[in-house]
């Protein structure tokens, strides 16, 4: 009993940004980015890319990265002879419109200024104005490698603690406002995913978490997978990443609520 109390007193609150900003984003890898001024269009990166995410944008005459398909492996950074590809250390990549992820117009814009604690506060007010009290989420794995599921699990750990923003995970889709779907909508999960979607009461939101759910990721060409869950159910927000960090998932949830 004494040990227990001692431990509780020693670590009263571990949540990031509490009391002061603790999270350090410096060593996060984030997304790769092609510096078009240094690129000579040799195509080496595109042929090395394991998920075919790099394509030749003929209209603009440059190479670009489809962030929904990218698995953030950084192979292209290694492949480039001219060091034209760098990591942007950006993790808040979620978009409502998939085309936004494919345009790759990511230069330094307002997205970089998102701070984790502010993000949470904003989420909290949005939830209040839209749902009244809280947002209930059901998670469905439609054929992931379980990386994304562990990251969604991490939303409940003492560091992220998403419940303080009024977000909770529920056991049944019938209690849910939002579905967080991971995985490439594989053949054996199709029916279960559809049933879960239909069991969720309207109005409902669907957030595709991870490269597999957004586009099929590295598994997109197989006989058992699909090119993203949007082939089966409508998607409101895409959260790219392989897997996306917990903070990136929260950002995606916030974006989705803004849609209602």
């Amino acid at each position, binding site marked *: 009993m004494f040990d227990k109390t001692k431990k509780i007193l020693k670590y009263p609150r571990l949540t990031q940004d509490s009391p002061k900003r603790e999270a350090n984003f410096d060593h996060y890898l984030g997304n790769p980015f092609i510096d078009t001024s240094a690129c000579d269009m040799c195509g080496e990166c595109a042929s090395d890319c394991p998920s075919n995410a790099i394509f030749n944008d003929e209209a603009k005459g440059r190479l670009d990265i489809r962030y929904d398909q990218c698995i953030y*492996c950084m*192979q292209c950074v290694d492949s480039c002879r001219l060091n034209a590809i760098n990591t942007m250390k950006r993790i808040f990549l979620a978009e409502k419109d998939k085309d936004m992820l494919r345009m790759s117009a990511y230069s330094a814009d307002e997205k970089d200024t998102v701070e984790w604690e502010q993000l949470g506060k904003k989420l909290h007010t949005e939830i209040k104005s839209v749902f009244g009290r809280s947002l209930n989420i059901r998670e*469905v794995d439609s054929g992931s490698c379980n990386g994304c599921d562990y990251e969604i699990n991490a939303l409940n750990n003492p560091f992220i603690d998403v419940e303080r923003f009024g977000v909770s995970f529920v*056991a049944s889709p019938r209690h849910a406002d939002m579905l967080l779907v991971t995985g490439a909508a594989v053949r*054996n999960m199709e029916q279960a995913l559809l049933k879960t979607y239909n069991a969720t009461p309207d109005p409902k939101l669907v957030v595709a978490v991870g490269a597999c759910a957004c586009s099929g990721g590295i598994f997109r060409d197989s006989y058992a997978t699909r090119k993203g869950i949007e082939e089966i159910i409508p998607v409101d927000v895409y959260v790219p990443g392989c897997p996306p960090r917990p903070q990136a998932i929260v950002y995606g949830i916030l974006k989705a609520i803004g849609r209602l």
Partner: protein
Amino acid sequence: MIRNLISVFNNSIFSSEIKNENELYFEIDTDKVREICSYIHKSKDLPLVSMFASDERDLNGKYAIFYVFAERQQANLLILKTTIDPNRMEIPSISETIPAAASYEREIKDLFGIHPIGHPEPKRLVFHSNWPEGKHPLRKDYKLNERPKIAKEIIDFKRIEGKGVYEIPVGPVHAGIIEPGHFRFSVAGEPIINLEAQLYFVHKGIEKLSEGKSIENCLYISERISGDETFANSLCYCQAIEKIAKVKVPLRAQYTRIVFAELERLISHLGDLGGICLDTAYLFAAFHFRTLRGWAYLVADELCGMRFLRSINKLGGIRKDFVSGKEKSIIKQLRKIRDELDDTAKIIRSNSMFIDRVENTGVLTTRTARDLNAVGPGGRASGINHDVRKDFPYLVYDLLEFKVPYYQYGDVNCRMNVKLEECFESIDLIIKAIELMPAGKISETIPTLEPYSSAFGITESARGENIHFVMVGENNSVFRYKIRTPSFCNWPALCQAVRGNIVPDFPLINKSFNLSYAGNDL
């Protein structure tokens, strides 16, 4: 061993050969498979650790079946290869004598259409009722992106009948944030009479997908077999390719790989321990383990910028010198985790209510564990003292001193203790590896590989023995990639361990094994 086998089965062994130092290949007569396998398994007491088919019609007009036995004391693999004529798609089943073979044979039947004759329960494994008859994707003439129409075949569950016996279907979508799988409990009152797990809900066709890919790209697929075993799987794949290429990985890379492999084990075990506490509604301890896990993730972040240890391995070494300059900070953080873990371990072990719940729950007997080749902490808690790091030493594990905890009784408590003690060993191993790490190169280049050469990679992931078979094709592409993760072996063991327990204990027993669905389903 070789002479012994050849003298007993002189007429049925066509050829024998030693590859990659410790892989003994025998080509045997298909009709004698049953005799030779049971001789090896029963008389020599070698476990069947993998079994798979390969479509070699382009090479010699036939399919090949490989039976892999492990001679753990001598660190040898014994591989029996037999060929199947495409006109006669049958093999004699060995499941009657070797229960561990049952799932492998069903898998081969689904993916290749080779029927195991005399199999006690030859129903579908990989494919569900939506898959049409007669389509076998791992045959070379099946196109990767061919998605057959939805079929309506019927697959029955095992029916247990009797007065007061009823069924509880659970899943595939579960209440918690976990992967999908369907469990069919047959119960009488509270105790479980039988559990049948229908898995393969997340079957993605990874083995087919990797065929024809370049060996570099296939590395990324191997990293995505099972999210929380990323490093162990990619290491296993790299090991196989490095064996084929006969490349020796520089020492610095080997030590760095140990740091990451043990870090992954630590993260995974801390998650499991938290899960065990959560499923017994012991929230204080559960959240402390989650905190520890969070700290371990911070270590991973600082080392490589990835929480899931992806993009670290490279064929022939590691991608960057991840550890240099961070030694002090990493060791400091690990010492803190170790001290706190020690405290938490004392607290949970002295809580009699908690121990009461985990003791005698979900017993996996040594006999069953041996029959089904249970591996990893699941096996070690049931008296099978086997750890790949000791038995098939890879990297520089043989230079580092560490203990492998093992228990006899096989209940949740034993599995929990194995994991708890392994956490301490892993932390000590990381610190030792960082301290002893020599300076030098971090990777070697992989030359062009000889077409159709093959090798096995064996590593110990957090869940246990991991065996990957890689055969390369022309132009450094992958011809056949067989993945056997520890979850594949331990799922049948879990189904046995829950028998006789009450339904509310199932989540607890499940968590104490913590098997990967993705790693099993592929």
